[in-house]
């Protein structure tokens, strides 16, 4: 819609400006708070201009939360989730779009429906599986009477166990299996003309060759978009790491550590709230996702627009 309406234009810009302010003011306050001393941050009215205490604050927060190894952990998990998801979603969508097999639509809908079941909704069963990744198989064996049969025949009691708690695997795997990526790829793959598939077949390329030589180069922007979204998603995970990781010293992630810095009755024991430390840490923890978004922005936007075709 293209119209010449100066008044409306002004209005839309005002609304945009207002929205921007609503987003930026808290960020600004966080930056200001991160640069003040404990006394300054707790004086009323709120200070609006930054002080010079950022580095001391950051140092103290960093040491207090042991951020060094935690950043490494967060990176391992975020990259693991991104790689896992980009790969898994790609081959799933590849199978769903380019192969004709029985129950194809059923499988697609089964995957699609999990969009409605985010991790938070199925957290208890997911935890149970993470506690013993083989428990579903154990249940099947028990229910079908196979374990009973084995027990009576050979005296061996079947008890499968594979504990994923307190491990990178446990942190990563449940976050990898979601439908968003599969859906994104599927919609893109559907736009690939049949003739291109046939041309590749005539050229003698088998399915994997076609995937590697044609589909993946063509879906670069989609991969970038998915990777960006998933990196931010994995980086910001809070509930799941909080549950599966009890050994925080070795496997803690930065976002969970950050929450410990936020002053409440527990951390300060009724003392003066240390907002300056919490805000300094917040700024650092925010950086990697922001950097990824800025770095990938060009690709990312193109990837999302392409899927609308």
């Amino acid at each position: 819609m293209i119209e010449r309406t100066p008044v409306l234009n002004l209005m839309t810009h005002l609304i945009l400006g207002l929205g921007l302010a609503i987003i930026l003011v808290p960020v600004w306050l966080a930056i200001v708070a991160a640069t003040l001393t404990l006394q300054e941050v707790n004086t009323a009215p709120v200070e609006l201009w930054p002080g010079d205490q950022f580095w001391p604050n950051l140092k103290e927060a960093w040491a207090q939360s042991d951020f060094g190894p935690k950043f490494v952990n967060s990176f391992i998990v975020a990259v693991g989730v991104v790689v896992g998801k980009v790969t898994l979603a790609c081959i799933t969508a590849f199978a769903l779009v380019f192969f004709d097999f029985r129950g194809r639509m059923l499988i697609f809908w089964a995957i699609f429906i999990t969009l409605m079941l985010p991790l938070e909704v199925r957290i208890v069963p997911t935890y149970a599986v993470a506690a013993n990744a083989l428990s579903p198989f154990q249940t099947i064996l028990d229910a079908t009477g196979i374990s009973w049969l084995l027990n009576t025949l050979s005296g061996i009691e079947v008890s499968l166990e594979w504990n994923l708690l307190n491990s990178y695997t446990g942190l990563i795997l449940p976050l990898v299996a979601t439908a968003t990526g599969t859906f994104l790829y599927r919609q893109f793959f559907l736009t690939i003309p049949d003739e291109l598939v046939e041309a590749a077949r005539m050229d003698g390329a088998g399915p994997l060759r076609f995937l590697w030589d044609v589909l993946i180069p063509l879906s670069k922007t989609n991969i970038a978009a998915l990777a960006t979204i998933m990196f931010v998603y994995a980086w910001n995970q809070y509930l799941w790491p909080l549950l599966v990781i009890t050994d925080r010293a070795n496997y803690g992630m930065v976002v969970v550590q950050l929450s410990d810095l936020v002053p409440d009755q527990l951390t300060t024991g009724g003392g003066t709230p240390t907002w300056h430390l919490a805000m300094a840490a917040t700024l650092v923890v925010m950086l990697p996702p922001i950097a990824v978004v800025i770095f990938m922005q060009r690709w990312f936007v193109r990837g999302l627009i392409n899927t609308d075709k």
Partner: protein
Amino acid sequence: MAEIAIRNVAKTYGKTRIMEGVNLTIRNGEFVVILGPSGCGKSTLLRLIAGLEEITAGEIAIAGQVVNDLEPRERGCAMVFQNYALYPHMTVAENIGYALKVAGVPKAERQARIAATAASVGLGDFLDRRPGQLSGGQRQRVAMARAIIREPKVFLFDEPLSNLDAKLRVQMRHEIRRIHTRIKATSIFVTHDQHEGMTLADRLVVMNKGTIEQVGTPDEIYDRPASLYVAGFIGSPAMSFLPGRVDAGRQALMLESGAALPLPRALAQAAAGRLVQAGLRPETLSLTAPGKGQIDARVDFVEELGAERLYHLMVEDLPLSVLSSEKVRPAEGAPIGVSVPLGALHLFDADTGRRIEPQAAETPVAVTA
């Protein structure tokens, strides 16, 4: 180079029959054009030969080997697609050489062959471009080069020229013919454009509703169409049809409008007493003064074609076209005569639509004059 034998091939999608009882033998090195309107199954037949779709019944053999269960790459066919189907992310050189890359041809040899093939279709200067930066004609050349470089036994073309503008189409037509004479691979070319078919083909295959109507050289098909369908489809401007009954005694076709058109004796005997559709090619007829020709008609309108004019006439309520280089421009609705030379009539059985051939030499020569 290979002979292709298609025996009793049928294709069904679910319960819909697309094709039935198709038999066709294509000789080694022959250029065959499959012609038909959209939806007649011509593209399906090509895809069955290529192996892009499975045949439901029957058998296809290439160079004597039954290929029913072979993958496309094992059949030795190369295909040029209607929308070119170039890989958008690869350069022209990569597009042309992809089949060789898949086949594991060493890089040095591959590049030499790419350069040679590209040069032969006039793409030497474009090797580093991407398909998106090329014009339609250039993309078409890339698609052809991609097929040529594999040195296939069989060349398949699926309406490759239909996305080009008229001038370029004629030019590419010559080029395809030129390439064929050079590499001599058995070629099958699918099109709905009869000019393309007529100019390119060694033999034409006319298809209709999933069956083959007629196979023959272009002039055989033009001169002796086997059915009403082929007669109406081949030839431009199209043939006109007038219904009538053959009177063997008078050696004439009695039109429903009352006119009598003389027939060659053998033809009149072959069709004696039958209800027929008479096919008249516009270019064989000529105009005369009203009442002077065998058919009396009225002028409906006149189409100017430059060198000639196409006169659309009405015989009572049936259309009849005459192509003539005379520069007369009769008024609309004016009466006019049409003269029909002996032997210009094609007769088709009114019920079956099949061509009625004159009874040849076995008919004893006439007793009386």
